[in-house]
């Protein structure tokens, strides 16, 4: 129903399609985008789906929960618009979003 643009650390772009109701992490994993591990499957348990949302889109990704904030607080390469991809639901509001991937996951 919409698209998400993942940009790897080396600037390689992956334009992906998504359905509403999944997560940014799952879309990246389904498309084998390098740089997103998502090891725990979306439980907010591992911190391996760190993404940096393009500034102008950040406000549309919803609120950061307490567990996510604690995980992010120790993530190297954390930026102002960092999220864990498993905690961002895909909705119509983020159709066209650009998301940057860090060089490493935890």
């Amino acid at each position, binding site marked *: 129903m919409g698209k998400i643009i993942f940009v790897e650390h080396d600037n390689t772009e992956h334009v992906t399609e998504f359905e509403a109701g999944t997560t940014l992490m799952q879309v990246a*994993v*389904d*498309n*084998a*985008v*390098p740089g997103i*591990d998502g*090891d*725990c*499957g979306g*439980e*907010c*348990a*591992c*911190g391996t789906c760190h993404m940096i949302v393009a500034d102008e889109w950040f406000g549309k990704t919803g609120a950061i929960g307490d*567990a996510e904030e*604690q*995980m992010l*607080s*120790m*993530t190297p390469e954390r930026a102002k618009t960092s999220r864990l991809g498993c905690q961002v639901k895909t909705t119509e509001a983020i159709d066209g979003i650009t998301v940057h991937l860090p060089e490493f996951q*935890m």
Partner: protein
Amino acid sequence: MTTSEKKTTVIVGGGHAAGALMTTLLQKKYQHEVVLVGEEPHPPYQRPPLSKNYLAGEVEQASLYLKPRAVYEKAGQQLRLGVRVEQIDRDNKTIRLSDQSTLKYDQLVLATGSHVRRLRAPGSDLQGIHYLHDIADTDALREKLVPGTRLVIVGGGYIGLEVAASAIKKGVNVTVLEAADRLMQRVTGPEMSAFFYAKHIAAGVDVRLNTAVTGFEAGDQGRVAGVTLADGGTVPADIVLVSIGVIPETALAEAAGLPCDDGIVVDEFTRTGDPDILAIGDCTRHRNLFFEKMQRLESVANAVDQARTAAATLMGEEKPYDSAPWFWSNQYDVRLQMVGLSQNHDQRVLRGSTEDKEFAVFYLREGCVIAVDAVNLPVAFMVGKQLVQHRKSVSAEALSDPGADLKALV
């Protein structure tokens, strides 16, 4: 690359390690043929939710899949599902499948996982005695979890306790029988065991420690009616779940003459005794440079980390496995995150109190943090990951003082 140079890598097994290997090979743009042979009818899926939200009926089966099947196929990877590998012929570099076909390999990756440890005792073949290892097991158990049913769980480890938490939510009467004097004895320290004991008791689970099982009592029509105990008592049961661990699946490897020792023996590059055969995940006894001795680990993190190591090995890069293992469990409102192995600790430091909603236990050996168990305290897990990986020496006071910033320790 011409067709004649194209080689075939066959992955035996369809679990988390196999799925992570398929994904890593896709991400790294591996140029050779990849064929996965899996006995279950499903593409690789997440097993952890089986005892948690999938058993509770909160998530759909398709959401367990690491990826939809079509994603692999669109990328040119083959999945042969519902087929078992019967034999490995190392001389001819072929495998024989249960549908009588043979498959040629250039490189073979064994990701055969584990199977449940069965309780051999009088009455163990009665109807109504369940094990939980795959989707089919979970579906069968879930339909029995109706309000008022008496479920007796043999074994108070992760799986047993996660099932207890899921079942009690559904109005099932749950009893957990544990032979040791505390829960999760194999994987955690006494503070955490006591904390989970209190949680389960408060939720209404009848937890009995120091309770060894001797067998099962028959009811009508070959169905189980109770679990018999070493002290002579019986616990009435409508259904039973036996969750007493797993055994690495090594039969194929052993028959092929590969070195095994309670697990297929592999080095830090996931190589077996045959240079063309790798092995990854639960089925391995492996070298991880992080540890001094060989390890066998039943965990998602080990499966994916070894899968990534194997992908590098297949592509001619040498990237030894050297990361600290980590684990997680969800029971009730508790998010337990763990890193490292605590067994050889000589000191435990509690941060916060087990009476609180959030706390952590740090396990030290000779002053270095070797493991952390964090309850609803993800920051302690994340800090712990770095302390454990780098074998940081940290003062017990800094770890235990809730006023001291944990992040400053890294």
